[in-house]
């Protein structure tokens, strides 16, 4: 099992969600996050005071899936979230040791 963590531009969330649904991903967790990479932050100006923010708002999407599906999940996110500009984000894939569905107690593949 794999956990696919994608940091994407906020306005790309709907497209990513649709692309993942299309390949059979049944659930995901979405978090509003801030961070920075190559993309520069925004400058805020309040009359004479200028503040540059280093952190850029992003969306973090987490999808747990079977190992077979992981490459297709990565491909779907990569295509859906792509604008071609700096700041499109990154995708991380990590191994998942255990999954438990709280309601039934099912574990691993059946719990996904």
């Amino acid at each position, binding site marked *: 099992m794999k956990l696919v963590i994608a940091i994407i531009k906020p306005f790309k969330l709907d497209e990513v969600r649709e692309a993942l649904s299309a390949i059979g991903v049944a659930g995901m967790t979405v978090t509003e996050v801030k961070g920075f990479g190559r993309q520069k932050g925004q400058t*805020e*100006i*309040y*009359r*004479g*005071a200028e*503040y540059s*923010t280093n952190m850029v708002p992003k969306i973090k999407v987490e999808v747990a899936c079977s190992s077979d599906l992981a490459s297709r999940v990565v491909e779907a996110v990569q295509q859906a979230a792509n604008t071609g500009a700096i700041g499109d984000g990154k995708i991380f894939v990590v191994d998942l040791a255990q999954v438990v569905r709280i309601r039934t107690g099912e574990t691993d593949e059946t719990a996904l």
Partner: protein
Amino acid sequence: MKPLTKLGLGPLAIGAMIGLAALAAHPAFAQAGAAAPASPIPAPTVNKGDTAWMLVSTLLVLMMSVPGLALFYGGLVRTKNMLSVLTQVLMIVCMVAVIWVCWGYSEAFTSGNPFFGGMSKLFLKGVDANAQAATFSNGVYIPELAYVCFQMTFACITPALIVGSFAERVRFLPLMLFIALWVTLVYFPIAHMVWYWDGPDGIAAAALKGAAALDAVNKDAGLLFQWGALDFAGGTVVHINAGIAGFVGCLIFGKRLGFPHEPMPPHSLTMTMIGASLLWVGWFGFNAGSNLESNGVTAVAFMNTFIATAAAGFSWAMVEQIVKGKPSLLGAASGVVAGLVAVTPASGYAGTMGSVVLGLVVSPICFFFVTTVKNKFGYDDTLDVFGVHCIGGIIGALGTGILVAPALGGQGIADYAAHPGTLSAGSYDMVGQLIIQAKAVLLTLVWSGVGSAILYFVIEKTWGMRATPEAETMGLDISEHSERAYNY
């Protein structure tokens, strides 16, 4: 006949009667007939429309302070200091209103010396339902209590303007002591110097008596009034006065902790927008109400208040577009306030197009002060009271000297003495008027700057006005008032 207590007119009106009696006793007049010649001065009348307008204007100016100014300022500070600003503005209004009826009105608007008034109306002695105050038209009066209330709102808002300069870093009670002393030693005297005079009928009556009487009446007025300084609704009295007082305060108390490295963005520009809009609406009472009656000049002031403000809001945003690449809401709101400040002294004197020019000009200058000058010198005028109110007020005061010119569509200088009983146009000299305006600005800057500096210094050294670093870091809402603005 009901007893009339006029604004500083009691003895003069009696003097005028004696004067007329003396004229009638003159042989040349005695031959004219048995009846004494009728006075050219209309009998004092109080008009219900004028009274209603003045009471409405009073409410409008009160709305400028609470909630207008409070929200305008409150939105600009950080969440942790929101309530401290709201409390300061509200409590200043409450406290100064009480001071005003106790000694403020008498100190500002009774006969005394050229710098401050006397004690004849201490605790509003004799100011009852029958008392009348002069306006700017011969024979037209308003209830003196309406005038007291209207002027009270000015006394309330002016010290409230100051707190923006050192917002987020002063303790509440020492601030209140400062304000009580400041209105007594700075505001009331300047209001007296600029606005106290004997009224149109007082001048007319004296003019009928002769040059000596006219001279005496003119000498009874406040110092700046004697100079001929024009300030329709309070450019010097309110804005330069408060602006320089705030500026001196922010220098004496020093910068906020973390300024300018730490980001201190406004916590709610939405509230700032609401506050600026309420200020604009309320300012019609401030400026047009300052005509003290409801007539054509009131409409002039109303239009000028409208159009100078619009022009200034527009030009600030356009300057930002050019200099910074984007127009901002805070910029547009600041422009609106700068326009209101600049048109205040000019409102009843300038013409419509003059006001448009004034509005277009004031914003780029204020913008320069709150961005370039402030950043270059590094002072921490938290809410730009100096850059907007003091500088905008100076532009307005000087601009008034130019825009009053009849050739530029202005109203010209009023002369009540040339034809006693009627208003006629006085002589106007642009350079001379500009010099008078500049002298008035300088006197206000020095009086308020020095007076405020002494008060700040004494209170800071004896009681301590600046909040402790711990209290400042925690936020004044919790450390001074034990409450939070927002509990989610």
